[in-house]
């Protein structure tokens, strides 16, 4: 969703000659015995919106704070636009942060808040006035210039915080859970506004969030973090469709995991026998795994077809088809979630859009067939 300006913009992370804007080199941070960030290396390119996604305690906020200068890495380097910034204090970095609580100065009005950073840089008065006014217009807070923070709503305070951190034209903007405090409708609206703003100003964003929907919407690339490590970094489609581990597959979106062993292993396809599933899974691409290794086939709920009549076979033999009974249905309006219990006892999650309103609705305890395309399963080995 993020690179809305078209596929014509080549992905810089795929270009080996592109110079990264922010380089995090083998950064570790320990607090006593606890390793908050464990040997993390990342390259972030100019103009990206990079999201660090993870559950609480995974180290994403610590990593962000190290980029902002509020924590010093125990080991490793942080390089921003070619300069080593590892030990540099926050007031000397060309980086600005938008805090989760916004941290607007309560004793100053909106204008003074936004002007604060410029004053510290000794920018001439007239220029400050002009830049503050422009930025406030950009975030649509121009008419609130003289108000104090306690007179603003949550969404308004967020815009002021954004304006305050962007007015200094930082090289990188760090955002700590930017949408966490907003309600659902406002969140969606603000997500798109943020992207638009970033596109217009060309600032590199680094966002930290635990909300995967937020990450998927905002990011040009996502870095999934767990226990202080980056377990996978890639574009939202890459992360979603090609997770590199069980953790990532399960963390981003929902997934059905089938444990099994390789029955056939060829360069163009593999066949996995899964006791859990009570059937074999035919995957139309090769994988690299040890012959006797346990593997997991991850299939997303929306990629499973559910029907009352037996489907035409989808692959050689009768792979990729199972039977079960509908155990539970959750109706969400635009789609429905079905929990189907197989003969083996395993429960499979299937989502189907409610495309039509008529009678062929599937109900509880109904016997159904589940099937999927041979390209749908993703095989993970850990």
């Amino acid at each position, binding site marked *: 969703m993020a690179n809305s300006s078209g596929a014509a913009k080549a992905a810089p992370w795929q270009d080996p000659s592109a110079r990264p804007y922010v380089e995090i080199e083998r950064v570790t941070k320990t607090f006593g015995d606890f390793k908050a960030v464990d040997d993390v290396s990342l390259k972030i390119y100019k103009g990206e919106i990079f999201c660090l996604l993870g559950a609480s305690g995974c180290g994403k906020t610590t990593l962000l704070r190290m980029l*902002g200068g509020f924590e010093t890495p125990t080991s490793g380097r942080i390089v921003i636009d070619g300069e080593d910034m590892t030990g540099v204090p926050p007031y*000397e970095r060309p980086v600005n*942060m938008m805090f989760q609580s916004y941290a607007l*100065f309560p004793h100053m009005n909106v204008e003074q808040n936004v002007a604060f950073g410029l004053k510290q840089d000794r920018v001439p008065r007239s220029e400050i006035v002009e830049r503050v006014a422009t930025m406030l217009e950009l975030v649509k807070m121009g008419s609130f210039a003289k108000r*104090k923070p306690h007179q603003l709503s949550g969404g308004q305070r967020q815009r002021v915080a954004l304006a*305050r951190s962007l007015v200094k034209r930082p090289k990188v903007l760090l955002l700590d859970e930017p949408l966490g405090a907003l309600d659902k409708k406002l969140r969606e609206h603000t997500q798109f506004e943020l992207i638009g703003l970033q596109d217009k100003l060309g600032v590199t964003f680094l966002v930290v969030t635990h909300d995967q929907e937020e990450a998927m919407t905002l990011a040009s690339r996502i870095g999934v973090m767990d226990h202080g490590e980056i377990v996978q970094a890639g574009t939202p489609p890459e992360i979603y469709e090609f997770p590199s581990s069980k953790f990532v597959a399960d963390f981003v979106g929902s997934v059905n995991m089938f444990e099994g062993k390789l029955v056939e292993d060829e360069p163009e396809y593999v066949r996995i026998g899964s006791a859990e599933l009570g059937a074999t899974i035919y995957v139309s691409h090769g994988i690299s795994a040890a012959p006797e290794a346990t593997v997991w086939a991850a299939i997303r709920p929306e990629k499973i077809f559910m029907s009352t009549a037996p489907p035409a076979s989808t692959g050689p033999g009768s792979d990729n088809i199972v039977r079960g009974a509908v155990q539970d249905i959750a109706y969400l309006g635009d789609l429905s979630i079905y929990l189907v219990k197989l003969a083996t006892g395993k429960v499979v999650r299937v989502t189907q859009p409610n495309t039509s309103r008529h009678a062929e609705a599937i109900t509880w305890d109904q016997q159904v067939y589940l099937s999927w395309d041979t390209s749908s399963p993703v095989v993970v080995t850990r």
Partner: protein
Amino acid sequence: MNYRRSYFIVTCLAFGFAFLYVPILSMVVFSFNASKLVTVWDAANSPTLKWYYSLLHNEEILDAAWISLKVAVINASGAVILGTLAGFGLARFSQFRGRFTLNAMTTAPLVMPEVITGLSLLLLFVALEQLIGWPAGRGLTTMTIAHMTFSMAYVTVVVQSRMATFDTALEEAAMDLGALPVKVFFVITLPIIFPAILSGWLLAFTLSWDDLVISSFTSGPGSSTLPMVVFSKVRLGVSPEINVLATITIAVVTMMIVGVSFWLSRAARSEKAAD
């Protein structure tokens, strides 16, 4: 909070507050009593303002009040500086050399009996005088130093507890926008915790104004404070002028407290909304 009005609690509250206020009210009432015996109401000539007149022309008391005022103001201002630094340091810096000692030194004066503090300070001044010739004799300087020493402990507690609820993100945001830590303290932290500092100042002022024991130990000839004069008078029994002094004090304190709490609650409300 659907808490049943317990009659027991309400009764306790009523008696408790009666206990606290009856003596104060009795002093006020009898300040208008014409009789020199204070507590024997002279219905024929009361209520009267004659003792008020007499108090306000009492040289001894007025001089003492002036001395108390000078000491209290200087003490409060000095204690606020020392106490804010200590309170800020203890709240913000979780580790530094000497933290345990500083913490101990700022909590001990809160509970230590005043006779010990007073005695020890006097002996210090005497020893210093012998050693380096300063302070030359006891007087306003020694008293002010003594007061500042115990007042700052109270200010430290006030500032420290205010800093505990202070959002560190505000300081970090300021630094992130380019301000050096010193600047952040003066431009961001100090203005926001100002109400707490003001309470600290008032607290230090009051402690100094009312102090008897430490003042007695550390004062010199010609530097009698108001409490010292009052003490010498009341040792001998009741005196109507003291009732008047009490009434005036109560009136001033009440006005100040009500005024300051109004102002503080307004400031707190606007800040809370900012969270």
